[in-house]
């Protein structure tokens, strides 16, 4: 009797695993379509605004004037290598010692463990993919074909953009489809100069303000951006998109959301008789007690590696190698972007121009390589993020100078400086992969992940060209002191890890169908980065959001028809 009562209390229409970029969207769409929805988050609760304790701190109000300590680095040896990591943001990243994984080959896994996940600390760039991307695998014989085309996802891009609110500039290029955007943030004088030089010298390259999920205008009572550029602390003005500030509140407003932090999903419960999943097993993060929750449909939105690990850990006689893994490809074809190639430069004119405020986005050079034809000795292409500013006091760090004249000099705005890096596509390789290690368990007794990924010849050739093109463009724009770079980078570092539970047309070679539905288990959907079939040039989060919204609408429709 007690068990029955418990089961009833723990039964929902839908369960969403993860509350980040994708999970927030699943929560919003499923609740708005009438489903009582339980969102399970493995990390702690983190309330919008109320829990952004460092958001408005001045540098001198932060420990050690915002510099990490040796103790911080010891607890977060991986997270602390991230450019975002400091005293104001460290609480948004996991303690690496408590969240172990194994690097069969070097792989940086940056993540948080809290409500909102990485939607709290992301870099906010939101670009659409085009058919150049969706057709690439088929055209060039890499991996498998995407089961969708631009026309399938375009209405969902629009649906997402209208809700999240993004600003920026449409490129008017077929490879970077136009979006619903608020006016862009201003360019500075140096950027305007570069833009006009590009227009004069190139037919295929342009500098635009990145499409960014940061509001330049008020939108649904949020924003606009106040020019702090301290987004990763959490935004008290709700000016950038986060799950905490946008989708989860919308889901809560329906009255059908149950959000439960500290809930680590151990596995999905497979009902052999029905050929369906009946629910999930959850370990409480603090008490370590196990509880089962039940629903008609389950959405895995636990991040690329998180969702794949849950599928792998969901073993049954029917699925001895992980739920939905009839194809054997689960865990394979891990991708990330690579950003090793680029250039730096400076500019000593336009010194009578300055700016006010801190813009929280970059300028962007959309992909121009291998667009109309294959023109280089590698497949695919890259776009660039471009960052410029006038030098500040940090230019005094490396010199031998000191004293009154030195102090006077470095407290004035210096010359213009520029940093640009390419974001290149990585091809899907079967042996770039993750697998569970049953011998090594995490503090909750869960098997840990092994990760093995390398960049290959195609990425190396592309990276070299990323540098060459960057240097050429800066020189064409009369930029001074131009120096190219082509660095070896560690996979995972772009934090666009994707693939490992890919979509496809054929259940023999893929885990998910064109609606992100597990081929063999129709009431399980996986809608985060793990579904990716290739890794186009553009930043991927907008696509995860659009695919999640699309899959949610489909799941509700199928539930209504009694098909799942």
């Amino acid at each position: 009797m007690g068990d029955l009562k418990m089961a009833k209390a723990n039964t929902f229409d839908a369960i969403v695993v993860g509350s980040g970029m994708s999970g927030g969207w699943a929560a919003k769409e499923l609740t708005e379509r009438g489903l009582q929805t339980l969102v399970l988050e493995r990390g702690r609760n983190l309330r919008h605004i109320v829990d952004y304790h460092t958001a408005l701190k001045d540098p001198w109000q932060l420990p050690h004037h915002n510099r990490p300590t040796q103790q911080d680095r010891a607890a977060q040896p991986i997270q602390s290598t991230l450019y975002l990591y400091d005293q104001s943001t460290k609480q948004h990243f996991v303690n690496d010692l408590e969240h172990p994984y194994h690097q069969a080959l070097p792989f940086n896994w940056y993540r948080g463990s809290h409500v909102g996940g990485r939607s709290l600390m992301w870099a906010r760039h939101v670009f659409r993919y085009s058919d150049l991307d969706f057709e690439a695998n088929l055209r060039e014989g890499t991996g498998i074909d995407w089961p969708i085309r631009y026309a399938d996802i375009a209405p969902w891009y629009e649906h997402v953009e209208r809700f999240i609110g993004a600003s920026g500039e449409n490129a008017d290029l077929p490879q970077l489809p136009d979006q619903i955007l608020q006016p862009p943030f201003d360019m500075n004088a140096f950027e305007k100069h570069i833009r006009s030089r590009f227009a004069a010298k190139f037919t295929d390259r342009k500098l635009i303000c990145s499409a960014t999920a940061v509001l330049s205008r008020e939108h649904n009572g949020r924003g606009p951006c106040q020019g702090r550029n301290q987004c990763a602390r959490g935004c008290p003005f709700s000016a950038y998109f986060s799950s905490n500030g946008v989708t989860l509140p919308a889901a809560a407003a329906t009255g059908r959301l149950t959000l439960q932090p500290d809930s680590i999903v151990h596995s999905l419960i497979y009902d052999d008789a029905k050929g369906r999943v009946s629910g999930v097993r959850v370990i409480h993060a603090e008490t370590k007690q196990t509880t089962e929750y039940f629903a008609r449909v389950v959405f895995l939105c636990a991040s690329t590696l998180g969702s794949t690990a849950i599928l792998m850990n969901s073993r049954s006689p029917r699925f001895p190698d992980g739920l939905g893994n009839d194809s054997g490809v689960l865990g394979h074809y891990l991708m990330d972007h690579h950003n090793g190639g680029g250039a730096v430069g400076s500019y000593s004119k336009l010194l009578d121009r300055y700016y006010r405020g801190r813009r929280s986005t970059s300028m962007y050079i959309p992909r121009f390589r291998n667009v109309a034809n294959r023109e280089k000795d590698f497949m695919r292409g890259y776009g660039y993020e471009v960052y410029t500013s006038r030098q500040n006091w940090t230019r005094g760090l490396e010199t031998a100078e000191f004293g009154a004249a030195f102090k006077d000099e470095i407290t004035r705005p210096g010359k213009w400086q520029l940093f640009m890096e390419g974001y290149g596509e990585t091809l899907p390789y079967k042996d770039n992969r993750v697998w569970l290690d049953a011998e090594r368990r995490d503090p909750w007794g869960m098997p840990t992940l092994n990760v093995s990924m390398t960049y290959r010849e195609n990425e190396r050739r592309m990276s070299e060209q990323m540098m060459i093109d960057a240097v050429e463009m800066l020189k064409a724009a009369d930029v001074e002191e131009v120096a190219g770079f082509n660095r070896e980078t560690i996979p995972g570092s772009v934090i666009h890890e994707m693939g490992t539970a890919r979509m496809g047309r054929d259940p023999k070679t893929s885990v998910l169908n064109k609606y992100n539905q597990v081929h063999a288990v129709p009431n399980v959907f996986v809608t985060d980065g793990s579904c990716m079939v290739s890794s186009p040039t553009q930043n991927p989060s907008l696509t995860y959001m659009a695919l999640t919204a699309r899959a949610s609408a489909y799941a509700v429709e199928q539930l209504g028809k009694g098909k799942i």
Partner: protein
Amino acid sequence: MINRRNFLQGTSVLMAHASFAQVVATFLASRAAAETSHQPAFLSADELSRVALLVDLILPETDSPAATAAGTHEFVDLALDACASPKQQATFRSGLEALAASGFDAMSGQERVAWLRRRAASDVTRAYDESFFKILKDYTLTGYFHSEIGATKALAYERIPGGFQGDIALAADQKAWAI
């Protein structure tokens, strides 16, 4: 619409209810801290007074206060204790020992400048971890320009700029933005 002005008003209203006592306590604590002398964490008292001389050689009083006025020497001490690696700590300590051995305490102001100039010239080509001068300068500049005095008096600082203006005329007396 939430904008800068009514957001700030909202915060002060909240503070009046929830945290007024806390704000007062914080203020009193910071005043108490200012009144009691800094207890060195990594440096000895003698070393701390030498570091105080050094940070003011690097960032002396100009139209803005000197480094020590912002407590920069104390920041250097705390950062050496908590932020520096053992290797960096060892480099810094041996740098200070060389300084003391060279009779720094008895030097005139000009002699001290000359000593630091020689040290900077030989250290500037060394790797950071092995460069006394680079570590000293890093902590001095960070400590000062991320202090309230450094950020607001030597530089220009806006906690909440209120938006972004990308292309404006540079005023003659415009200081660089602190962050």
